[in-house]
Structures are given as C-alpha cells and as structure tokens.
C-alpha cells in the first residue's frame, strides 16, 4: 500500500518535473498525495491539513527560483515545511544533568533509559539511574538487569510504593554522579493521579530535561497525549522508539508540533546499543514514503551551480552570508565537512574545531533562518542588529540566540577563509577548495 502511495507521490512530482510554470491543478494533486502519505504515516490529521495548506500557498505564491523547475521548487518547500516542524535545537550537552523519562504504558521508557545511560557513559560521563516505577511488576528487575550489564548504578526498591519518596532517596544516593536518568511508570492523559505524580517527580528532581517517549506506531492520539504531558511537565524533547519496525513515526511528529520541542533520539532495536541521534532527512523520507527524498532533493539543489559561488570575490575577502548559504547547501549534499576536507590536497592545514561542529540538522536550520533574511542582510551581515535579529528569528520560527549563533558561525567561517588565504595555500588549491565547498562531487 505504501509503495503505491509513494509511487503516486512520485508520479505527481514527475508531472511537475518538466514544468517551469506553476500548474495549479498539478500542485493540488501533489498536495493531495502528500496529505495521504502523511496521514498514512500517522501524522495528526489536523496538522496535515495545516501543513498542506501552507505548502500549497507557498508553492503557488513564491517565485520559482531561477533555473529550477516546479517539481524542485515544490519539493524544496515540502521539505522545508517538514523540517521546520521536526527541528528545534535538541543539543545534548555533556554536562551534569537530570533527565526525566515520561510516556504512555509500554512506549519504551525503561529500555530507552538504559540506552541513554549507555550513550552518556560512552561519552565519558558518570551516569546513574533511578527506577521511580513503583507500579509495574518486575519494573525494578528490568531496569536493574539492564544497568548491571553496563555497570551503571541503579537505585530502586520493588517493595516501596511511593514513587516520590523513592525519587528523593535516589537523588540523595546518586548525588555524586554527573547525570541521573529517572525512569517512571507508564501513564496516559486521562490518569489524573498519575499525571499529578509525574508533576511532583518533576518538581523534586528539578529535571534538566523532560523527554517524552513515543512509540513509532502511535496514531492520532499522539497530539492529545503529548499536549497533556506538555502541560504537566513542559516536555523539551521527544524520543521515538521502535523505529526498527514498519511504523513511520508520524505520531512523534504530531507530538513535537504539540510540545514545540524536537526529536532527540531514535530507538531502533531492543538492545542497549540501539539508540541513534535524530537525523531529519531520513525521518522525513520515511514519513513521505519516499526512500529517495534525499537524492531528489540533491538534484534540486544542483540548481545552485558551482560557478554561482563567486570564488574570486571570496578570494578578495568578500564572503557573505549568501556564500555561506550556498556552502551549507552544498555541504548538506556532500556529507560531513571533516570528510570533505580530508579529500582535499590541503596537507596539514589546521581548521578550528568549531567549523566541523555543524551537524546536518543545524545546517538545515541555518538555511531556514537565512531564508527569512532580506537580501541586503545576506550581502552584508553587519546590518543585522538586535531588532532585525528578532524579526529574522520570528520569521524562521527560531530564537534570536540561534540567529546570533549563526552569525557567530559565519564569522568563524570568514576568519577561517582569511586564515587559509593568509597561509598562502596557493591559488590553485584555494579555488579547488571553493569548488568543493560549493557543490561539486
């Protein structure tokens, strides 16, 4: 069934491929197929309607960028709209913190607790776990067995019936550890007593993060459940579990839309190692039932040709946000910067670590932010004062802090380029580097 769906989505896209003038009927057809794809991936029906409305409006209203056909134009909009939804900064910091796990019965909280403990342990942190589930038979056996496998201390007591008391004792016992994860029993929106309980656990733990664990198969209930959890404990991240099955995780998309948070991790198996950082491209491809979305998008991005990057201007020291946008665009398609640099005949050229530290999620975000800048700002970033920053942030569904971060990154890139020039890497190499940066294979 899904194959048929994605085929029809692809067919609809194909119809748009040759066109250079926007065809209302063809866009409508595409939007309809898109709706069906998203609904069959369990994205909340109302959310799908909102999304498809703005995709339709943007597709019809926005000017076709020079050199792109309608398909590329629409595909890019679809992609941007979806990324806008799933993306919110979910940087996982390696600092002392407490993480509170919340979610429906059987969603995978306990298993994910162990996976997270492992994740942070591997990053070199001292991790402990509190089993605050006083209800489910075998809950403590389950988490303590998992923790024992990875040598993580686990505090709990299957005989204690008071989750709040247990949590307090656990915090005291594990107070010398850097990172504490609190596993809780499953609960749902209509269980008022249990919602109250998790509110109190949140107060007691003063949790740094409150992550909602969502089963990839959860359907239309996801929005309402997430809303209630969010009201109770201010969810700041969603973890999707069981992505190794055939479910698409649309419920998790509804949940992030509801909580205005982002997807932090993906659970992809039953073992402790089966945890991945979230990566938007794969997720969106899966939602749309189009495995090759990324490839399609890459072709769309080819519109930004290598020669459009003004290498000479950059050589002369003019490196604008616009150039960086193109770079990010190209990089997104080429893979991690470090890898690309590795391919270059640059010898032992040193680049600041920060240059590499831009994840693909971040790059996508940066591009969205730059999309809401004026062309004057793109050409001359110095124009961006704090009121402009506010406006840009609002337009991109972002925060001024993030815009500031982008500018900071831009400045670093600029300095890096200056450094490269100064280092006398030779004109030939510089041009090659620029070409690499700007979208060649």
């Amino acid at each position, binding site marked *: *069934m899904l194959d048929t769906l994605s085929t029809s989505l692809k067919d609809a896209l194909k119809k748009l491929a040759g066109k250079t003038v926007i065809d209302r009927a063809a866009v409508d057809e595409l939007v309809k197929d898109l709706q069906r794809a998203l609904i069959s991936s369990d994205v909340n029906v109302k959310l799908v309607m909102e999304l498809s409305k703005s995709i339709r409006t943007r597709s019809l209203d926005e000017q076709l960028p020079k050199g792109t056909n309608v398909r590329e134009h629409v595909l890019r909009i679809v992609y941007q709209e979806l990324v806008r939804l799933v993306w919110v900064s979910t940087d996982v910091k390696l600092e002392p913190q407490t993480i509170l796990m919340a979610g429906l019965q059987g969603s995978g909280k306990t298993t994910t607790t162990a996976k997270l403990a492992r994740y942070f342990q591997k990053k070199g942190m001292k991790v402990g776990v509190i089993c605050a589930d006083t209800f489910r038979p*075998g809950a403590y*056996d389950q988490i303590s067995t*998992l923790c024992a496998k990875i040598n993580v201390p686990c505090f709990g007591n299957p005989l204690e019936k008071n989750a709040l008391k247990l949590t307090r004792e656990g915090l005291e016992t594990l107070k010398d550890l850097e990172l504490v994860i609190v596993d809780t029993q499953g609960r749902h929106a*209509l269980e008022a007593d249990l919602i109250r309980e998790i509110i109190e656990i949140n107060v007691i733990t003063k949790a740094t993060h409150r992550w909602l664990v969502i089963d990839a198969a959860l359907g*239309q209930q996801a929005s309402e459940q997430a809303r209630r959890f969010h009201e109770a404990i201010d969810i700041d991240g969603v973890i999707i579990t069981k992505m*190794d099955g055939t479910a698409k995780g*649309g419920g998790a998309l509804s949940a992030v839309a509801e909580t205005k948070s982002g997807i932090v991790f993906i659970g992809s198996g039953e073992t402790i190692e089966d945890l991945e950082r979230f990566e938007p491209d794969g997720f969106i491809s899966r939602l749309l039932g189009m495995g090759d979305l990324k490839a399609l998008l890459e072709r769309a991005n080819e519109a930004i040709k290598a020669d459009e990057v003004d290498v000479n201007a950059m050589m002369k020291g003019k490196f604008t946000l616009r150039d960086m946008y193109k770079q990010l665009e190209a990089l997104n398609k080429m893979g991690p910067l470090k890898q690309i640099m590795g391919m270059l005949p640059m010898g032992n050229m040193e680049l600041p670590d920060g240059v590499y530290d831009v994840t693909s999620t971040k790059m996508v975000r940066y591009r969205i932010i730059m999309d809401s800048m004026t062309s004057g700002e793109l050409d001359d970033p110095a124009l961006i004062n704090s009121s402009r920053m506010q406006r840009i942030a609002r337009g991109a569904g972002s925060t001024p802090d993030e815009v500031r971060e982008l500018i900071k990154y831009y400045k670093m890139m600029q300095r890096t380029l200056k450094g490269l020039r100064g280092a006398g890497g030779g004109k030939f190499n510089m041009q090659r580097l620029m070409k690499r940066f700007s979208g060649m294979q």
Partner: protein
Amino acid sequence: MFGGLREKLQAARNRLGSSIQEAIVTQAPPAPETHKGGPSASSASQKSISSAAPTFADKVKILIIDRELVVSEKDLSEALSELEMTLLESDVALTVTDAIIAHVRTNLVGKHRKIGASVDALVVGALKSALLEVLGNGFDLINYIKTHNRPVKILFTGVNGTGKTTTVAKIGSYLKKQGYTVVIGAGDTYRAGAIEQIGVHAGRIGIKIIQHQEGADPSAVLFDAVQYAVSHKIDVVLADTAGRFHTKSNLMSQLEKIRRVMKPDLVVYVDEAVAGNDAVVRAAEFDRTVGADAVVLTKADMDSRGGAAISIAHTIGKPLMFLGTGQGYEDIIPFDPVQVVEELLGSDA
C-alpha cells in the same frame, strides 16, 4: 471508550443526512422558510432529532416518504469527505478508510431508493452495515473452551510492549473467576525482567506458572507448561511470548517453532487500540507468518477512538476477542461488535 468516534460519526451522519435532504429539497416542492432548526444546525444526537417537535427536517422527511430518491455522487462528495476525515482522525487506517467510504458510497450513490423510513436511517444503515461488515463477529472464549478438548492451549503474540503479558494475566484472572483452572507459561525468556513480571502477576492472581531461566528456549518452557496442564488436568494453558517485530525473521521463525512445539488451539494476536496505520501492516504480517485466530486490543482506556479495531479486523478478517481497558486484572471486556457499532452510531436508528 469510543466516545470520540461516536460523537464525530454522529456529526458526520448528520451532515450526510442533511446533504441527502438538500438533494431532496431541490427535487421537492418549495421548502418552508425556517432553516434554523435544520439538521445541519443541530449537533445533537439523532434522539433529539426524532423526539423534538416537528422540525424542518421532519417536514422534509414527510415530504419524501414513498418518493423515489436519486442520490448523486456530487450530492454526497462533501459529506463523504467529512466522514473520511472522521474515520482517519479515529485511527482507522487510510486503506481501510478508503474501503469503508467506497462501501458507503456504493450503498448511497446512484441508486433509486424508495424512502419509507427516515433519511437518517438510510445513512446510518449504510454506515452500520459497513462497520459491521468490517468488524465481523466477536469471539466467545468461554464458549470456545466449553466446546474443545482440555487443555485448551492459547498462544499470545504481538509486537513489543502492546500488553501481551498483562493480557495473559487478565485473561487468567477472568477464566479463574469463571471456574476454570489455568496454567501460565513464561515464554518470554528474552526481555530483562520479563520472567519476574509474569511471575508476580501469576502469584497475585493465584495461578500456577511454568518458567525457566532467562535466555532459555521459549519452546521448551511452553512445552513444559502444556505437559504440566495435561498431567494436572488443567483446563487452559496461557502462553506468554516476547514481543517481536514482524520484520525480524529470526524472531518470527522462533515463534513459528513455538507454534510447532506447543501446538496451540488458538493464536491470539495482541495489539493496542492507540496504534495508527502500522496496525494494519503488522497484523497482516503476523497473520501471514504464524497465524492469528483472534485479536485482543489493549489500552482502549487511553481515550482511544477505536479505529485500530476496525483496521485490524478489516485487514485480517479475524474476530476481536477482548478489549483491555486499564492495568487492573478486571480491566478487560469481551468484545461485542454489535455493541461497539451501536455505541458508535446509536442503537435507536
């Protein structure tokens, strides 16, 4: 439970009703001027429509009694798309929704119909028959046990975390209350804490449990449970298994082996009422590989709209046996399709 779907279906039904009425009105003599009390304005259930003083709708109904009515596709398309939304929002999978809409459409569109009853009945009839056709008949477990040789061996399967273990405990408790003797086989030897979990449940409800060590061969455990039942003249064997995804062929063949070894009389597939479209995919895969004789849907207490019941039944055509409605042992109710459809659509129409 299912309250949400019922409300929404009633709204959609009212719409369908009103759009048919609109279609009629265009053929009928000029309508009375007051449109305010019309069915599209009232979101109340059909009870209030039929019991209130004669409204516009009633007058229309009287006008069309014994009149031939042709309903065109166009008349219905808007109302049907609303019904479609309703089903989708209730977690009926997209494919299944398509099928139901098609069914309702062929029942209402293009046919010359003598309308002897109300327009309401026409629409409700089409919806009801569609849903009943999809849901099929329930599964009477007690009757099944009564009419089969002891021990009756029941194997529980499903993907991770749907509620298999809890359901085994609930059904054990239910059967025990009905006077049957039960043994539970702790067939999940894989997941951490699984043996302890089912062990605590069995202890609380006072049912014998057969268990091996973590990591043991589940077929061997469940074979032992069956042997125990035979030698102790136990009525029913409930076999718990580890959750597994239909995409993992090694785990599916392990399940296949379990089935060969313990030879269950019934394979019960357990999924949750809050599952979305994937319910269809995995039910079909489980049914195809290890078979399914009946279905239990858990977590119906999570404000679920019940769409998964319709999706699964439609896809594998197997009866629903129980609904799980909470985490207590008593939170389980035998599934009655007529009751569910009547709860959805109201019984008096």
